[in-house]
């Protein structure tokens, strides 16, 4: 089972087409293992990307260097998935009224 400890989902806000193009370059780099939940398309739309732990440093450096604004949408993906699983188990265990 694939787990996602330390993985983060970043919400990136591009301010112009140049930054969108830089993000498209990033998405083309398959070594980083990025999973774009919302693709870089246009500065009017946010870009959401799931970043494997091993690429976090590089991606943050890239965004910092190019002064591309981002926020952390999900701090640790595995924590959220663990919560989802707990919820499923807990609510299944509850007898239906």
């Amino acid at each position, binding site marked *: *089972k694939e787990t996602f400890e330390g993985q983060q989902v970043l919400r990136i806000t591009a301010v112009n087409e140049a930054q969108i193009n830089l993000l498209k370059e990033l998405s083309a780099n398959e070594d980083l293992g990025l999973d774009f939940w919302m693709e870089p398309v246009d500065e009017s739309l946010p870009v959401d990307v799931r970043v494997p732990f091993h690429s976090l440093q590089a991606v943050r450096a890239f965004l910092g260097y190019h002064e591309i604004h981002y926020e952390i949408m999900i701090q640790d993906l595995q924590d959220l998935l663990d919560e989802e699983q707990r*919820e*499923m188990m807990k609510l299944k265990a509850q007898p239906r009224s």
Partner: protein
Amino acid sequence: SDDYNYAIYHTLNEINSFIDMLVQENPGFVSKIVIGKSYEGRPLNVLKFSTGANRPGLWIDTGIHSREWVTQASGTWFAKKIVTDYGRDTELTSILKNYDIFLEIVTNPDGFQFTHTSNRMWRKTRKPNSGSSCIGVDPNRNWDAGFGGPGASSSPCSETYRGPYAHSESEVKAIVDFVKSHGRIKAFVSIHSYSQMLLYPYGYTSTPCKDNAELHEVAGKAITALKSLYNTQYSYGSIITTIYQASGGTIDWTYNQGIKYSFTFELRDTGRYGFILPASQILPTAQETWLALMAIMKHANNNPY
């Protein structure tokens, strides 16, 4: 099915058991059609809600991207809603007097099973790609509508890999064959998440579709109905103008088959949880989406073609 817990996420087996239960409870109204098999051999189950023979049809599918769990959960709730409201809600009863409703809840069962067992983030189908170690095709890039154009990837390792050829995926081909053999599907709604949008063709070209004005009007009515419940904000428009260029998309193909009322939903949220929407939001999401679906089906019912 009254005791089924619609407010939590369920496994593939639980959803398939629900489907069989609903059929059992509603003989003569609800039936199950197996339109094909997934790559790994799982049945592609479609619920049919019918009150008479030889009716034109309205199609709804959820879960074509397997990790979008709120869509399969919403589809389950829609199924129960149809059964509960038929004979009570005058609009739905009128719709079902003139149309059959077809609902495919788990449109990508292999991927969905994989999200429960191995990788919660899985989106695509699970068919291996010859010559590559990467698995799966994006089933929303595999349709014969602008197939292979910009807005899909030719790399099997990409999340938007279009596949080796149009309709290469059995999960897609099964729907293609069903729509063609039925021949009288009049509305087609494919439900995704997330980003809260209601979209209509085209995605593969910036040329407006010939019914652009009407579809824009219907989408506006639908999201107004949706918003009336919990004030959830949606944007709407054609795929290419609202999100991005996407080739080989489902509703571009259905529209080009002559199914005028072709829409795609992107459900909650706007970007707090993304695909990991808390189960507490399943019911409000399904309830508000149903109002939009009813607006679309009502328009189709009032504007036969």
